[in-house]
């Protein structure tokens, strides 16, 4: 596992074995509600990235922040924040979560 990568808990469907996103109550593939926890590394590949320059009211942010959607190596897709604004981060880049703040995973590019 890449050094410094957090692990996150996903739900593995007991009926069909599909991994679902965090907090899933039902398996989208077979409608089972029976899960077992599976810990996976929070590492994956960027699908899309942007910098939110004007946060809406109620969002916990200190000014602008970067945000990414990514596909975890384990399968499911996630949305998280970038640890710091990285305007060069782009689709296809490898990122991993190294910390979490207020329940939000904070990602950064994997160092080669």
């Amino acid at each position: 596992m890449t050094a410094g990568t957090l692990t996150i808990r996903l739900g593995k469907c007991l009926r069909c074995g599909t991994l679902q996103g965090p907090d899933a109550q039902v398996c989208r593939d077979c409608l089972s509600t029976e899960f077992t926890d599976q810990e996976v590394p929070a590492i994956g590949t960027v699908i899309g990235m942007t910098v939110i320059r004007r946060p809406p009211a109620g969002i916990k942010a200190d000014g602008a922040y970067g945000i990414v959607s990514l596909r975890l190596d384990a399968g499911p897709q996630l949305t998280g924040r970038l640890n710091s604004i990285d305007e060069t981060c782009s689709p296809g880049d490898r990122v991993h979560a190294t910390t979490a703040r207020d329940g939000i995973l904070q990602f950064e590019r994997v160092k080669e």
Partner: protein
Amino acid sequence: MRSVSILGIGSTSFGMHPDHRIEQLAERAAIDAIADSGIERERIGALYLGNFVSGVLNGQEILAGLVADNLGLPNIPCTKVEGACASGGIAFRHAYLAIATGQCDVALVIGAEKMSHKSSSEVAAALNCAMDNATDGLAGLTFPGVFGMVWSAYAHRYGATRDDISAVVIKNKTNGLRNPLAQMKKLVSAEDILRSPLICDPLRLFDCCPISDGASALVLATTEIAKTMHSHPRVDVLASAQTRGSAHLATQSDPCSFTATVEAARQAYATAGITSDQLDFVELHDCFSIAEVVDSEDLGLVKRGHGARWAAEGNSSVSGSLPINASGGLLAKGHPVGATGVSQIYEAVLQLRGSHANQVRDAALGLTHNLGGTGVVCTVNILARQS
């Protein structure tokens, strides 16, 4: 299913209406639509009203019944529907279905929103109610952010340039100059766009639709009734489709496409018995400049990855091979979110009647497209002029 026609249209201007409450905007549009239809209000058998955030921004719900009461309509079923920015499109489809299935012979459709009295951060927070706030919203995603991500993925895959996507903005702002109802009455250049502030990279201010107030309304009736009315060229509804897509980014199968649009378009073309190359014009959901590019591909108007260049070559201008958003679209006409789906049909009917300010030559067959949330809901309608 019975055939359905559009008898009457009405709309307020889009922009800032500080002196009117949301229900007053809705009533104004409805009065115009009823007058335009030539139908007595006593014949209206149902009202469907599209609205998204009136509860949050105006503290006013029960809009459908409130407006109907103020208009003195009969004791008919009055229903408000919500589907984020596609609320108006959903309202139209419900009215269409009510008539097509024989529940009533005449129906009133209204879309209304009032937003401009709130700050942009308050409006953004209200619009974020249409996000999955346990996942995307929690992470701080916003709707401009969704389309910033779409742009990043699209540019990475297809290599679209800033200039190509700016061409969409310039076209729609130019179209808006001639639309008497449009909010944005200023021509912008590529340099103006580049100088405007970043909102969600790479989206800049002029890539984004404005915050708007406004309302639009339509009177629908059976085609049998429409045949007895002769004040306008008849406009028939050939198809009205509604579909579901992804409610969160995590279930999007392709970051450069909205599956709800692809499926709604497929259903609408099949029901109408047409192909996309038969269309004379399109009004689509350009909430952001990149959205028009992706929508035009999802609707099958242009090949995947070619939408930006195709627009930059002028194909979607009013005199192009397939005019898109001759109204100015959401980028220039404005986007009072619950009104937009109805407003698009208002603009399409003007085109089909031959009386639009940006009239498309020989317009006989048009498509409207309304998208909500992270692409979780879409409506596509195909409308035709009958001689």
